[in-house]
Each structure stands twice: as C-alpha cells, then as structure tokens.
C-alpha cells in the first residue's frame, strides 16, 4: 500500500482535539509571572523610570551587558539598526518594552507594572511614508542618515524602449494597509533555570527554535550549550513567530539572574501592539502594453514600511527585497525597472507574514492586468493568456529561474470550473434588480522550498535553507525521525510519516517525529516560507532511503538474494518474483543484535541526510465571486475557487487545509484586517473588536482543484503550498468587487476594501444613492 497521496487523518489531531495539546501556557504553572512595561508613546527620550520599592523590576540599565539585536545584510544599501533588548535612552514605537516586572502571579505582575512610571520626553513620531520620506524628515534612528534602510534597484537595458513602443501605459498606485498575522496563540515563553547544570530551558511559542537559541546566546554572550529551546505545540505562527524578540532574551536573562523559572504569556493586546506586523506597502506601477495586450515592460516604485526595527534573522529586507525580486510573478516579459525601499518608522516592527510581499505584488499585477484588459478591450482571461509564462525553465528579468509549472493550464481549469457564461447571465439579471455581483481572477507564482543559495543571494549574514534529518529504526521496527523543521499546526508530522512510510514499508502510525527541541533535533531552520514539505521532506526521504537501503542489504543477506530484488512494503521485506519474505521488525532486530553477520555494514539503523535545494515554484489561479451591497458597501464572498499546482500531494487533505486557511487570510486581507495608527503613532486597533479577523461566517467554502506538475527541483516531487492561498486571494476578491461595480466605472487599489472605502468610491463615482 502506498501512503503518499492519501487523505490520512492527521496523526496530531486526536491529542489536539481531546485537550491533550501542550502549549507554553500549559507548562507555565509554577513559574513566576513576567509582565513587560511598554512605552505608551511612539517616540521620545526616556527621562526617568520610577519603580515601586517593593517589587522585582529591571530596566535597560540592568541589562547593559546584553547586546542589541542587530541583524545584518551584506548590501551597501542596508543600514544595520540595533534593537536594544530594553532601551536605555529612547523609545521607538508605541508598545516597545521598557521595563520588566517579575511577581508570583500574573495579576500581581500587572499590579506592579502599573506602578512603574516611565517619564518620556515625547517627540513627533514618524508613522507614515509621506512623513518618513519627506526630504527634511528627521531619521527615526540616529545611526541612519535617512529613513530608507534598505533599497534594491535595477533597470534592464530595453526598458525605455519598451515604454516608447507601448500602445498603452497603465499606471497605478496601490496601497496595502498594515496587518497582523494574528496567530490564535499569542507569543509566550517559559524560561526554566536548572541549578544542577546552570542551563536554561526556554519553552516558547516559536517557529525557529535553533535560530532562537543562536540569537539569544549571541545577545547574552553565552555559548549555545547553556541554552535549550523547546517549541511545544504552537498555535499558529504565519511568520510572526520566526523572529528573535527582545522578550525572549529578557526571559532567559531573568532565569539566569534570578535562578528561578519565569514565564511570560502574551495577551492579545500586546500581540497586536508589539509582536510584528506586515504588508504596510505602497506600490506605484507603470506597465507598458502592446496593442495586443502583451506586457512589454514594467516600472515600479515599491515602498514597504518596516517599522522601528529590523527583524532577526531575515532582516527588514524581507518585504522590500521580495517585492523587488518577485514582482514580475507569473508573467513573461523582459524589461523591468524597479526601486524598492524599506522605510523605517516609529511603528511596530515588520516581520514575515504568510506570503511576504507577494499578496501586495500579486494584487498590484492582477489589478494592472484587469485595468489594461479593460483599456485595450481584451477579456481579463485573454490578456493573461497572452502574458503568462509558457516555456520552462523560465528566467525572470531579476534572474529567478522558474521550474516547470502550469500557469496557463491552472487558469483554464479554474475558468472552466467557474462557469462564467452562466454567471454573466445571472450578473446581468441581478443588476436589473439593483444587485451587484462580480467575478475576479488572479494568477500567481509561489516560490517555495528554497535553500541556502536564495538566502545567500540576498546577502544575509545568517544564511538559512538546508535541513538535516536523522532517521532511526529501533530494534522493534519503529521509526524515529528527528527534524530541524518546527511545525506549528501544519500537520507536517503526518505528511512526513506518509513519506517515510513509503520508503521503509512501515505504517505511518509507527513513525514518531521529534521536532522543536534543540537538545533532541539536528540544527535546522524551523518552519516558514513554504519550505518544510520540500526541504525537511526531502531530507526525510533521503535519510529514510538510506535506512531502507540498509534494510534491503540485511534482508538480501538473510534471504540470500540481491538487495535490488527486495521490496519493503506493509511491514515486510519481500523478494520479488518469489514468495520469500521477512518481517521488517525481524530485520531491524538483526541489524542491532546480529550485526556481526552483515559484513561492511555499521551496526544498527541510524542514518541522516541533508537537503538544500534551489527552490521550486508552485502556481495557482484563484477565482472569487462576490456580491457588493452598494448601499452599505458590504461585500459577501459567495464562492471561491482555487486551481493549485503544488506538484505531488503527499496528503491532499492537509494541502487543502493549507489552501483553505491561506485563502481565509487572503479574504481577511482583502476585506477586513487593518492595523491603524493615529498620527502620533498610537495604535487604534489593539483588540479583536477593532482589528477584525473574519469568522467562519464570512468565509465561503473554498473549492479546490489540483494540477500536478512534477518538478525535478524537489526530491519528493512536492512543491510548497503554505502561502499561496494568502497570496492570490486579495487580488481575486478586489478584482471581483471592481467587476461588480463596473457599471460605476470603479477601480479600487487599496487593501482592505472596507465597506467605508467602497462607499467612498461610489460616492466619488456618483453611485451613492443618498449623496
């Protein structure tokens, strides 16, 4: 029986569903409670900090020996900014931790925190692009001469020529407002001090446990051996939990200082205020189109608000440089000119959030295609047909090499399933009755599973990418896989078990996967960037393959045949074309207990493998159907289709879950979620009453179709699929809204398209009935 390709129920779920999950807060019981005192203002000089006399309170002065968090990109345009773990002299965003309180329980800690009075000489905060980029703007950080802290630029030779020859130039200004990844579980950490060894164990809700160990050890100036990091069950991350946050450094410092266990369980207000944001971007695009709709060239000015600090380890280059490199997306054109800037402001730090720049850049390109199609009198699908990448490998204007994909076919499959002729008839009939339906399309590429070459190309000082997997079969034939990836809700353990089952011929239930513990797993990069199935999956397959090879040699020796004739399946090693067979458990026992019989083999069944691929592109096409209520500006997503090509699906149910969740976040991006600051940098959306993740009631069932392009770039034949849903959905939804509102000639370029913004557009277009 093959396990790959089966909708195996997730092995993780029984525990999670029955309350057996184990999150940081479940471990924090006996530890002292930590509460951070946070800056109430966005910018200013710390004059003094008054502290209660009867409490355990520490400030930046106490942590003077701790180095700032200062990630590096080796690029001439990158300005390294240090983030003090607790600031001594100045605050840089509203919510920045300025002091830390330790007490016996959380309520007492909050009581104490209220008694810490931070006197700040308030300065004018820089919050938005206009202020930050004004010629006379004061730099947010003294170590930078301007607020541009990273900048990518390029221009191909023939760009001007392309614009000179264009029949139509489409210019647009796109605005994506800021968002939070809003994981269900907030951040949190428990630092436990072990008196016997002097080591600290940090149990934290994170995506990259090894990176956290390195980062904390470096800032504290201790060897990594003094620290163990555990990521237990983690309730979602979406990129937010990749970064090294000051809070975690402080926790370890406190445990070492106080020689006791301390825990910080973040609340939602803190998470919205001070964890990380993303997608605060303003893109200006100009597309040069030929009469037949071919895109000849693209010019872009891209700005990303990176907040007050640079996130470790990926740096504040993550959004601007992703936008720089990947704006061309699924389209085949040669001439490209781009300037992409990361702009620092007195706001919460930007960090990766599912999709990283690609939701905004896909939104930009797909809006541009729709506008160009209208202007040129071409159908929206047709203009894409004429521009999509069709030959592989494809080299983009920025030098990215796209492996085999199905850009055109995926779109055709989605369009076919959408039943557009019937929809157009219904749309027309409904318009007569004052109801506005619309359909919107988006097509995009999703670069996934990239290893060290891609990160090295960015100039990162810390170059992530590879994964090491240890695979051991024990004497009873059960398998343990130790991985550096750190799943946090993706069902990776199930998918890896399926993959390894097919290599070793044992059931997935007999494969245990150990992750998220730096004492028990090889150094690895955790889970982010749609990488784990490709990279950890690749190394798991390779490592299990080595164990399988050894099992076959053992079986061949015992059954006196050639290893090539052995097949491992359903718990048995069978000799092909004969009925000779041995149980895999018997072979495993022999590997350990009869090792003298196998000349040239090391005893036992323990192998490891490394995989460090160049990357593989997934692709998909989304189609959204919406109804817009023109009186309220409210939008209902009626139907949502996805045609996705993620190569070979190891567990299609899990893949569907990834797509569905991603699309839900994409719809949130399109219609609901927005972090809002006032002019002084004060956060106005500090709870879920104001920051609005949609509920199940707002999300339709997502209809998913799969393509299967097998790429040589992935040893498992799987492509990454973690981010696509979030990447493609905003464009499809807003294109659908614009289609619905086409009688009013409305084109929207702002995310989210809130009811208020839609009414505003209708008012401007003269379509507001009560104006």
């Amino acid at each position, binding site marked *: 029986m093959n396990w790959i390709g089966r909708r195996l129920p997730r092995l993780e779920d029984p525990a999670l569903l029955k309350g057996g999950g184990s999150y940081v807060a479940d471990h924090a019981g006996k530890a002292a409670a930590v509460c951070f005192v946070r800056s109430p203002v966005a910018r200013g000089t710390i004059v003094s900090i008054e502290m209660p006399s009867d409490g355990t309170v520490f400030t930046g002065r106490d942590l003077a020996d701790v180095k700032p968090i200062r990630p590096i990109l080796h690029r001439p345009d990158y300005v390294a900014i240090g983030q003090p773990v607790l600031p001594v002299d100045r605050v840089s965003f509203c919510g920045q931790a300025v002091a830390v309180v330790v007490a016996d329980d959380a309520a007492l800690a909050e009581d104490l925190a209220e008694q810490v009075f931070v006197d700040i000489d308030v300065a004018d905060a820089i919050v938005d692009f206009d202020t930050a980029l004004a010629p006379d703007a004061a730099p947010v950080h003294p170590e930078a001469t301007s607020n541009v802290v990273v900048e990518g630029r390029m221009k191909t030779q023939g760009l001007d020529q392309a614009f000179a020859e264009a029949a139509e130039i489409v210019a647009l200004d796109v605005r994506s407002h800021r968002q939070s990844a809003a994981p269900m579980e907030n951040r949190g950490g428990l630092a436990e001090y072990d008196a016997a060894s002097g080591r600290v164990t940090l149990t934290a809700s994170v995506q990259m446990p090894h990176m956290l160990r390195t980062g904390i050890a470096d800032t504290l100036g201790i060897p990594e051996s003094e620290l163990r990091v555990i990521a237990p069950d983690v309730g979602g991350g979406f990129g937010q939990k990749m970064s090294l946050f000051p809070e975690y450094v402080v926790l370890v410092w406190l445990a070492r200082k106080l020689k006791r266990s301390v825990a910080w369980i973040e609340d939602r*207000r803190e998470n919205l205020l001070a964890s990380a944001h993303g997608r605060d971007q303003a893109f200006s695009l100009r597309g040069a189109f030929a009469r037949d709709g071919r895109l000849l060239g693209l010019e872009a000015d891209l700005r990303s608000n990176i907040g007050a600090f640079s996130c470790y380890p990926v740096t504040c280059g993550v959004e601007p440089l992703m936008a720089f490199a990947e704006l061309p997306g699924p389209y085949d054109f040669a001439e490209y000119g781009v300037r992409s800037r990361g702009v620092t402001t007195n706001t919460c730090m930007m960090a990766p959030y599912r999709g990283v720049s690609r939701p905004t850049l896909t939104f930009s390109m797909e809006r541009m295609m729709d506008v160009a199609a209208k202007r040129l009198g071409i159908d929206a699908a047709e203009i894409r047909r004429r521009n999509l990448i069709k030959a592989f490998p494809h080299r983009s204007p920025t030098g990215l090499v796209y492996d085999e994909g199905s850009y055109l076919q995926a779109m055709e499959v989605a369009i076919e399933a959408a039943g557009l002729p019937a929809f157009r008839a219904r749309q027309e009939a409904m318009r007569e009755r004052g109801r506005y339906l619309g359909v919107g399309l988006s097509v995009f590429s999703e670069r996934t599973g990239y290893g060290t070459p891609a990160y090295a190309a960015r100039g990162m000082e810390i170059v992530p990418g590879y994964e090491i997997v240890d695979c051991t079969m024990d004497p009873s034939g059960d398998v343990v896989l130790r991985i550096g990836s750190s799943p946090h809700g993706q069902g990776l353990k199930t998918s890896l078990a399926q993959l390894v089952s097919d290599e070793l011929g044992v059931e997935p239930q007999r494969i245990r996967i150990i992750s998220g513990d730096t004492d028990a797993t090889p150094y690895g990069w955790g889970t982010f960037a749609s990488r784990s199935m490709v990279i950890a999956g690749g190394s798991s397959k390779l490592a299990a393959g080595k164990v399988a090879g050894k099992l076959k040699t053992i079986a061949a020796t015992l059954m006196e045949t050639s290893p090539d004739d052995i097949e491992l399946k359903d718990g048995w090693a069978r000799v092909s074309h004969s009925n000779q067979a041995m149980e895999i458990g018997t072979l495993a026992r022999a590997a350990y207990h009869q090792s003298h019989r196998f000349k040239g083999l090391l005893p036992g069944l323990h192998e490891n493998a490394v995989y460090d691929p160049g990357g593989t592109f997934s692709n998909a096409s989304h189609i959204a159907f919406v109804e817009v209520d023109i009186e*309220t500006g409210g939008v209902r997503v009626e139907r949502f289709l996805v045609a996705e090509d993620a190569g070979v699906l190891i567990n299609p149910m899990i893949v569907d879950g990834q797509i569905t969740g991603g699309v839900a976040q994409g719809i949130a991006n399109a219609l609901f979620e927005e972090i809002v600051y006032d002019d002084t940098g004060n956060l106005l959306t500090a709870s879920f*009453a104001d920051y609005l993740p949609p509920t199940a*009631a707002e999300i339709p069932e997502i209809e998913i179709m799969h393509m299967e392009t097998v790429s040589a770039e992935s040893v498992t034949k799987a492509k990454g699929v973690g981010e696509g849903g979030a990447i493609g959905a905003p464009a499809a939804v807003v294109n659908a809204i614009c289609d619905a509102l086409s009688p009013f000639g409305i084109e929207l370029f702002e995310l989210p398209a*809130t*009811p*208020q913004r839609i*009414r*505003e557009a209708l008012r401007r277009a003269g379509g507001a009935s*009560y104006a």
Partner: protein
Amino acid sequence: MKAAAFDYLRPADLGEALALLATHKDDCKILAGGQSLVPAMNFRLARPAILVDINDLNELDYLRADADHLKIGALTRHAAFHRPVVEGPLGTLLAKVVRYIAHYPIRQRGTFAGSLSHADPASEWCLVAATLRAEMLAKSVRGERVIAAGDFFHGTFTTALEPDEVLAEIRLPAMAPDWRVGFYEFSRRAGDFALGMAVAAARVEEGTIREARLGVGGVADRAIRLGTLEDQLVGKPASSALIDGIAREARGMIEPNGDIHASPEYRRDLIATSVKRALTEALA
C-alpha cells in the same frame, strides 16, 4: 490581561443585594452576565473594588407577559429570546434581533438588563427599548421607581440608574397581532457591534399606517427614537416613495459619530439604508 484586585460578594436574595449596594454604592458594581464588565475589568478599564454578583437572585429570572407588557426580569439571558417568547410581532422581532447580539456563547450568559444598564450605544436591546418605549423598573433600599426609556439612556455607558439601584425589570409594551416589524443591522462581521441599525414597527389598516415606531442605533452616543418621523408615517399609505423619503430625512436628522470603522459621512449612509430596510420589512 488580569483584573485589578476586587472583593467578590454573592448575595442570596434581592434584599441582601440591595443592602450591599446601599452600603458600597460607587465602590461596587453589579455582576450579571459579565460579558461587558469582565472584559472591561481585564483591560483594567473598569476597576470596581467590590463585585456584587446577582446570579443567585432567582427571583429576577423570569419572563412574564400580560395584556399590557412583556416583563423581562434582570437575569433573563439574551439566549432566552432565540425563540419567540411571546406570540405575535413582539416575540418575532426579539427573536430576530437577538441573533445580531454577539455570539452564541456570549448570548448564553449576557443579560437583557445588563445590556441596558451597560448602555453601549450599539446595543440592540437598547435600540429596542428606546424605540418601543420600554419602561425600566429600578429597585433600591429606598424603594422602586419606573423610568421611561426616553429618560433612561444618558449617553455612552451612562444611564439614569443610581449606584444603589438594580435594574430589576424591563417592561416592553405588548404589540397587537396587526403590528408588523422590521429590523436591519450592518456590522463588519457576524456578531460585531452594529455600525448602524434600525428597528421599525407599524400598524397598518387597509393600506394606511395607523401607528409607527422607528429608531436607529450604533450611530450616536445612544439609540435614537425618531419620533417626528414616526408622526410623518402615520396616516400615510405605505409606499416605497414614503420609505425613501423617511430614510433621507433620517439621514439628515442625525449628527453621527465617527471612528476607524465608520466616518460620520459613512454612518449617515448606514442610517438611511438601515431605516429604509427596516421600514421596508415592516411595511412589506
């Protein structure tokens, strides 16, 4: 996200509760369903020194209908209205409106009286009470008094209740079977507070409106009963032109507030649309 320290008292009957309120006055707060008070305490926006939990006061847990009123005891939960509590238009209206209040688990605990006492400007029950001219029965050791809806709501989170008073009962006027009702609400997500909403009710005889009720909520510091528009409706035949005209007038009459979700301009749109849709439903 932990409340500041407080004392917790749990009286066994109304008499005991009123005595505690009389003793502690401003230092204490009544705890009913806790669905507004507890979050506010966790944010430390509310810091009562003492909580007087009224959940053991079974004598306040009732719904009674007589010829004139539907009487709602203070411990009646939102969820009690999921199915019509009385036959006829009033029961239908309440059963429709309740679905817009928060989410199912919150409706199991939150109380009708708690909503009114809390006086959130976007509370559905406050809108219903204001529009249908409810009466509030307040009790204290000093005695009891009946407060008309028009006098009860003083603004955002403020009412006519004194610190020593319990809102013991809400009386909604009974509605004859020939009343027709309508409700419309716009909110960003299911269960969110309204950005704009309207309740309408009318008694129509042979095509002519004989009596009308109309109110809007979620747009100003309290629910607003649109008395002059009610008067304009009376005596007229129901028509879409009439409804449109009333909606436009409502739009112009109110100076709505603005926040990050809705500017005053946008709220005006929602006033007009809510009034139009609620009236259309009632007059259909």
